[in-house]
Every structure is written in C-alpha cells, then in structure tokens.
C-alpha cells in the first residue's frame, strides 16, 4: 500500500510541477493579457489603456503574489475568470472539453480499428508486391500533415459529396469525418507498432507451439500472435491519446468545432492565464491518472511476461 501512496505523491508533485512550470513559462514570455485585450485599439491612447487594464487585471502585482493567488485559488477549484470571456475559466474549459473528448475518443477508436485491420491484412498477405505496398501505408499515413488530411476530407465529403456540413456539423457523420482526419496518423502509428510486434510474436516459442498444433495461418495470427503483439500497443494508447489531444487543435480549426485545442492555443496567444492553468492542470491530472491505471493494470494483462519468467 505504501507503494501506491508514494505513487500518488509523485502524481501530486507532477501536477503541481506542471501548474507551476506553465505559470512561470507564460509569465516570462513577453506580452500579457492586458496587451491582448487592448490589441487593435483603434487610434486610442494605448499606453494608458494598457496601464489601466493591467491594474484592473491585477497584472501589476508582484509575480509571487500572482502565483500564490493562482495556486491557492486552484487548490480550491477556483482558477479565476477567463480574461476574454469574462466567466469562470473552469466553465469555459469544460464547455469545450466534451467536444474534444468525443473527437479524440472516436478518433482513437477509428485509429485502433484501422491500424489493427491493416496490420493483420499485412501479415496475411503473401504476395510480395502487395505486401510492400501495404506495409508502406502506415508510414504514409503518419507522414501526412494532419491539417491537410482534414482539409482534403472536408473538400471531398462536404464540398464534393455534400454528405456533411462544412461548418461544425453536429451530426454523427460530421463527427466521424472529423475524427477520421485525426485517426489517419494514429492508425498509421498503431499499425506500424503492431506490424513490428506481430513479427516478433510470430517467432516466439509460444506461437511456434500454436503453429505446430497445425492451426491455420489466420488463426495463428489473429488468435495467438495478435493477443501478445497487442499488449505494448495497448500500453502505448495512453501516449497516442496525448498525441491525439494535441492533434485536435488542427482538426477543430479545420472543421470549425468547439474544442479544448483551439481554446488553449487562443489562451496561450492571448496570455489568458486562468484558462491556460485549467488546461494544464487537467491534462496533467489525466496524464497522471492514465499512467497510474496503466501501471496498475499492466501486470494483470501481461501474462506472458510472468510466463516467460
């Protein structure tokens, strides 16, 4: 139990570190919210506007006071108001969060389905040329700029085929196309990893045994090798989720969807500290939680490791 206590403590340290790091990173970067707020003031006395806003926003206080306020506030769940939207930053964040979650989750699902199918097909293909071709698909998928994939999908499905609306289609179809844009790269990397692992697994004594039993190639690949090869893929999903959440900003922009990605980019650009801190804290918590879960679940899943000794 003590071991879990220590892990929890580590988790808390990581979240605190992320919070503090983000605060000071944003603080030392030139510009502040007062600058963002007054940007574009048309012909006005900008200097005075800046000073006034700085005072109103409390940005003229010493940095340690600002940090202490932010930290103690955050500990009580109060991150303050978004400077641009003038409502609680937590509210702003959680309005977009489900949208991003939906997008990332469906994207991940698609990525897994695409990736696994492709890998199995590759493993089952005998003809050398077809196999070479298939095997080059995952790297192609990974090497496509994600925003370009989104724009092309949009051109095809919205402007040519008219299956979905171009602007923030709320239907499932719209969500599906948007997450497909996200899934291309994810599917590619899952397939790359899985293909490599499948090969490894096919040489293992475990599969060798299965093959000696006279099972068909399909059975060997799908029933036995896949099971073992999938393990590292599953444990890497945590990272893939992270990569996807990072990728959502591009997808959200292209598909004009509300989402955390866009929110965070705007918040960093506008130095909207409360929103940035909420975003950082939440993602740090997710990171810690996912790793804790993976860590706890892993020994249960990985029978082979014990089996191997």
């Amino acid at each position, binding site marked *: 139990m003590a071991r879990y206590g220590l892990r929890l403590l580590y988790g808390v340290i990581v979240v605190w570190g992320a919070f503090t790091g983000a605060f000071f990173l944003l603080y030392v970067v030139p*510009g502040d919210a007062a600058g963002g707020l007054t*940007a*574009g003031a*048309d012909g*006005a006395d900008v200097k005075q*506007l800046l000073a006034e806003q700085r005072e109103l926003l409390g940005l003229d206080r010493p940095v340690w006071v600002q940090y202490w306020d932010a930290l103690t506030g955050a500990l009580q769940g109060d991150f303050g108001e978004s400077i*641009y939207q003038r409502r609680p930053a937590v509210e702003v964040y959680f309005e977009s969060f489900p949208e991003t979650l939906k997008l990332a989750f469906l994207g991940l699902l698609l990525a897994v389905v695409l990736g696994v199918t492709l890998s199995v097909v590759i493993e089952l293909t005998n003809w050398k040329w077809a196999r070479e071709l298939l095997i080059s698909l995952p790297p192609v998928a990974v090497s496509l700029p994600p925003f370009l994939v989104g724009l092309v999908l949009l051109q095809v499905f919205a402007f040519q085929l008219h299956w979905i609306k*171009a602007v923030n289609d709320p239907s499932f179809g719209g969500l599906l196309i948007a997450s497909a844009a996200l899934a291309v790269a994810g599917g590619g990397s899952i397939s790359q990893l899985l293909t490599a692992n499948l090969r490894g697994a096919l040489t293992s004594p475990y599969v060798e045994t299965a093959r000696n039993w006279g099972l068909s190639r399909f059975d060997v690949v799908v029933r036995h090798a896949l099971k073992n090869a999938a393990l590292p893929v599953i444990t890497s999903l945590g990272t893939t989720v992270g990569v996807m959440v990072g990728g959502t900003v591009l997808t959200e922009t292209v598909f004009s969807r509300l989402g955390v990605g*866009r929110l965070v980019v705007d918040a960093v650009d506008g130095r909207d500290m409360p929103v940035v801190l909420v975003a950082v804290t939440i993602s740090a918590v997710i990171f810690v939680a996912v790793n804790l879960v993976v860590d706890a679940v892993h020994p249960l899943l990985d029978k082979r490791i014990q089996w191997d000794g």
Partner: protein
Amino acid sequence: MQPLPLAPEPIERKQQVVFSYRPRHWLTAVGATLALLATAACSGSGGGGQSEAAADVAKKDRYGGTLNIGLSADPGGVDAAVVNQVWRTVARALADSLVFYNPKTKKVEPWLATSWTVSKDARTYSFELRDDVTFHDGTKLTAKVVKANLESLNRPGIHSSAKTIVQGISKITTPSEHKVTVQFAEPNAAFLTSLSRAYVGIVSQKTAELPVEKRQKWLDGSGPFYLEEYTPNQRIVLKKRKDYDWAPKYFEHSGSAYLDEVVYKIIPEDSVRNGAVIGDDELQFIYWVNAKYVSQLEGSGMTISKTLNPATGLELPLNTSSKILKDVRVRQALQIGVDREQFVKIASGGVDQPATGPLSKDNPFYSDQSELLKYDAKKARSLLEQAGWTKVGSDGIRRNADGERLSLRAPRDDAPLQVLQDQWKKLGIELVLDPPLAAEANEALLSGKYDVAYWYASSPDPDVLRANYGTTDGSDRSFVADDDKTGKELDKLLQEQNQTIDKDKRQKLVDHAARILVEQAYEVPVSNDVDIWAHSPRLHDITPVGLDQYLINAWLAKK
C-alpha cells in the same frame, strides 16, 4: 475567446500580425477593372449594388429567412464600446447611433438625433432626440440615457476606441427629456463623425450601467436586431425586432428589417469559409475576402461587391527617431521606392487602389499628394547614396561607411509587407518582418523598436491623421524627435484642423499637413484598401457604409 480576431479588416490586420494567419485577408480582388472600381464600386454605393436585378421582388415579399454570415474569428464580445473588433458587423446591427454618416453625400445625417447644433468653437454640441425610440428591453430613449451612455464609455476597463471619442467631454447636460448637450474642454471638430460609428452605438440605461465585463457578452440596444445567443468561438445569433421603425433616411426603409434572424458563424479556415458560401447554402455572406479567392467565388456564381475604405488603408508610419530613418533621405527613398501600381497588383490582385495621399479618396477631406508618391527607383537609389549607403554587399543589401547594413524592421509579415520587402530589396534595403504576438503587440510597437510600424485607425474624418501623428494630442506614431522642427509644425497643423469648423479652412490645414506627412515621409501611404464582400445570389441589399455592414435592407430570395 480570441482577443484578436483574424477577421480581416484593417484593425485586425494588425492583429493578424500577430496571429499571422498570413495569406488570409485583405488582399483583394482579381475580378474587376479599375474603371469599374473607380465608379460604381468604390463609394459604398447606398442601397447595395445588386438591387436592380431583384428590384421586381415586391418589398412585402422580402420578409423572412435566416442570414448566415461567416466570421474568421470570434470577435471576443458583441459590444463595440467594449470590444475592438465588432464595430463593423454584429454591433452595428444591435445598436443605433445618434447620427448617421451618409457615404454618398459625406455628410452627417439624423438618426436617433433628429437635429443638432454645433457651436462655432466646436466645443458645444446639442442634440434633439427622437421621441419614439425604444430599446429591446422596452425602455425609451431619453436624454438621460444618452448621458449615461457617453459617461459609461469614459471609465476604466473600456479598452476600445470608444473611449477616445468621449475623452475630453467636460460636461453633459439634459435640458429636457429629449435634448442633450455635450461640452468639450477643447475644440473637437471630429466629434459628430465619430459619433456615427458603432463604437458609440446607444444602448439602454441598464446596459450602459453594466460593468464592462458584462457588456462584453450582452447588449440591449435600439437596433433592428437583438442578441439572442452568443456562444464564444461558435456563433452569435441575432433576431429581428418587430417594432423597429427608425432606420436612417438613407436606407429608404420603414418598419422592421426583412430578415428574421442573422447567425454569425465562426469559421477559422479560409477555404472552409469560401466553400461554405459556395456550396449547400450554409453561409450566404462572407466579408473582407482575400482578392485571390474572387475568381473562384465569382466562377461559382457568388455576387462580389467592393467598398473603398474611407480612412486610409495600408499606411506605414516611419519611426523618425530610429537610427537609420532619422535621415529624411532614407525615408524619402522608401517613399518613392514603392511601386504602388505593382504593389496593388500582387498584394491584392489589382483591387486595392494605389495610395494618392494619407487619406482615402472616400474621405471628405481627401488631399491629393500623388505627385510625391510616384515610383522613382533611380532617385530612390541616389537618395540612399547621398545618405551614405553607398556600398552594396554580396547579399544585395546596402552598407554605409561603418559597414552597417541598411536593415529595417517591421511588425507584420502578411502579404502586403512581403511585397514591400521584395520591392525595397531591389533598392538594397532589407526589411525584416518580425511580427510580435497579439499580447505583446501594443508594447512592442510603442517601444520604438520597429523602424516601419503599423497602426490602424479608421474614421471617415481627417482627424484620424491627428490621432495617428499628432504629438501633443495624438499617438505620435512616427516618433517625432524633440528637435524635429518640421514635426512640430506638422503637429500644429494637425491640432488646428480639429479646432476648425469652417470646411475650406479645415481642408487647407489638412492639405498642408498631408503634404508634410508625405514629402518628409513621416509615413508611407501605400494603398487604399477595398473591402470585398462575397454573397450568395439569394442575398440582396446588404449595405456598406464605410466598412460597416448594415443589415436593415438585406433580404433573401426564396430558394
């Protein structure tokens, strides 16, 4: 939330610096010939350009429908008094102004005020108000409400230009229920024109009294539409007010607006906005369209209309205190080293107009300085040599006797600046494009670290020059040095013009100031920009006034 909409419009251009969604904007159209531009398109043609074709649809059949408008970024709020970016769109539909600036006659006409008087010294303005105007919340327009409005704009937290307009007011009195008098400490000839802008849209007493941060999200005005919903980064929904009946005469419109509903959708990607207005009727209107998309949009049957910006356009204040630009010869070389014809061709597909002075032709006090703005590369080179930039390095950039490179910095990196960069490079001048991010833009620009600056102030009044270049009372965009006698003279002229009501006298002052600005190259006027709108053929009669969009006459043909 974005503080800084990328939505293409002059002000936002600065932002864009910032955000640098570079190729997006304001570049303008390939389509039309210059002649066409000069006549019909250029002067904010009242009533909308495309009305003839649809004139046979009876007015009573124009009612109904939802107009969808694409915005490139969230404006960050709905009230122009509080937020810088919405003056031309949402805010204009929600709140009316006391007076209306007629783009055809270039005169100020009645709107919420039926009549007014201006004292000879341009210090006292009194307005007689309409007595039949109500706000969306049902309250009536009275002198007290106007007083509350003007006062509410001059308080901490207001960070738009609204504040500049009301600053200097010494006293507001309300002699009767529908009469209001505004007194200034100093003469202010620009006040009436400024009042016509959406910044000073009149709102209900309750809205005026709201804390600034509330006004950002909510507004109760007397406009033809009211705010139904505002979801940041997604959409802004306006609904029509059935009891509206006080549109300016200019629109020849009685009663409520035709449209039932207006939805502004925030769509960051250019290609998506373009696609959405072309296909499937998802949008019926986009504005400040990049000229490079015009052929594509026209080819798909969209209607394109163009409006000349009444203020300036691309004008670059030069930092006259900077190490290199202290020398007037280098500044003059920059001035005549711009091939403005070629510039508009590349930067805007020939839609924008080459600048002929510090003010646009659409400004009532336009001053023609085109003689001083002719492209002359030879003379520019010789000016540079006289200034000591004689050697040309292997990189094509000039150097002086000390071996310093002739390198200047500018705070934007969008298409126009890239074109200038290319043109000046031919003279041996390096222009480094180094845009600051939004949040640091103001400070970076104020610090004087840029040689070539960019600010934007749009107003159909010549006082915009004082606001930009005045030193005693103005923003001193060209960093006039203390020992600069010409700069002092310029400032005097700029201050004087805003204290002069007589039109001819004022014009003379403006002419003189404009000449100094150009000749001594305190600024480089490059082009007057033309705002391109693209709409679906179903949409008619959306009316430009200056760069504002008036939706009162807009109507949608049935599908």
